[in-house]
């Protein structure tokens, strides 16, 4: 786990927030599941415990996790919240895609056509 790469452009605590959210979306972390303690998570990732504490506080602020006194930190049981996370993640990825395409001079329509063509070709390949 250690030596995992972190991007320079973003705080480490937020990159770990992103990873945990992705694990929830993929179903690797389930509703009501307990997260490792701050210290355990620090050891697993090779990251400073103060940074991990910030990750957990941010997840709590986002209402993705709940801290139960004396018991630890748990993934929310709110399924609606998890659906929302998934939608937000999708929007985020689309925003990056659209921004990159715009910078290359593609219009909205060209992007949509481009995607459709891409999927058609992909389906064709899969049928072979």
């Amino acid at each position, binding site marked *: 786990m*250690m*030596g995992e790469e*972190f991007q*320079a*452009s*973003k*705080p*480490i*605590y937020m990159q770990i927030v992103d990873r945990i959210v992705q694990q929830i979306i993929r179903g690797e972390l389930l509703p009501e599941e307990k997260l490792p303690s701050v*210290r355990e998570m*620090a*050891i697993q*990732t*090779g*990251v*400073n*415990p*103060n*940074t991990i504490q*910030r990750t957990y506080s941010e997840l709590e602020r986002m209402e993705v996790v709940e801290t139960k006194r004396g018991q630890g930190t748990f993934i929310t049981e709110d399924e609606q919240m998890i659906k929302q996370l998934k939608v937000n993640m999708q929007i985020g990825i689309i925003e990056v895609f659209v921004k990159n395409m715009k910078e290359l001079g593609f219009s909205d329509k060209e992007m949509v056509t481009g995607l459709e063509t891409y999927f058609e070709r992909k389906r064709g390949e899969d049928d072979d």
Partner: protein
Amino acid sequence: MIEFQSVTKNYGGDEGLSNINISLEKGKIYGLLGPNGSGKSTTLKLIAGLAYPSKGKVIVNGKTVNRKIASEVVYLTEVDMFYPSFKVKDMISYYQTQFSDFSLNKADELLSFMNLEPERKIKHLSKGNRGRLKLVLALSRTASVVLLDEPFSGLDPMVRDSIVKSLLSYIDFNNQTVIIATHEIDEIEPLLDEVIALREGEFIGKFNVEDLREKEGLSIIDWMKQTFKE
């Protein structure tokens, strides 16, 4: 808890320091960075009471540093300080006689954490295992200041990993402050709260690792490359 007040240290050579003012807080892990000869080791020696300022004051736990500070400071040197004919367990007993805050229980725990055999002779240990043993000895003490001079130097990634994990497992973040002097910042950046950078004996910056990313979009390596390229 550690303070440098206008500290200057003159040596014949170039490893001195000029007019350093810094203060370090409890419960944090600091990286002390800079090229060789920038004054990293001198800084650690001044905190450990192994050298004294030519001008100014070094204060640790509210006291001006003198010889007695050794009971409150763990200092892991870059060089091996082992008796080669000793067994691992002899080194542990020797340390126990030297430091009243040395905990045998913690040492036992750390030995098994690091997979070190107590009956093994030190001269038969690999370089990596000697590096691990140094960490065992350092982390078995409860002193409030832990100074590590180049703890990763020349060690392979597996050993570095076990050192990082032992620090995260055994440091008491409520009571201890850790300062790691290193020129190999690469893999340990996520371990650090703050960084202090030195160049040719001068203080050139102190910042929070996460703030640097948040405000400037830079990792410590990026910042070092920018700052030291001239």
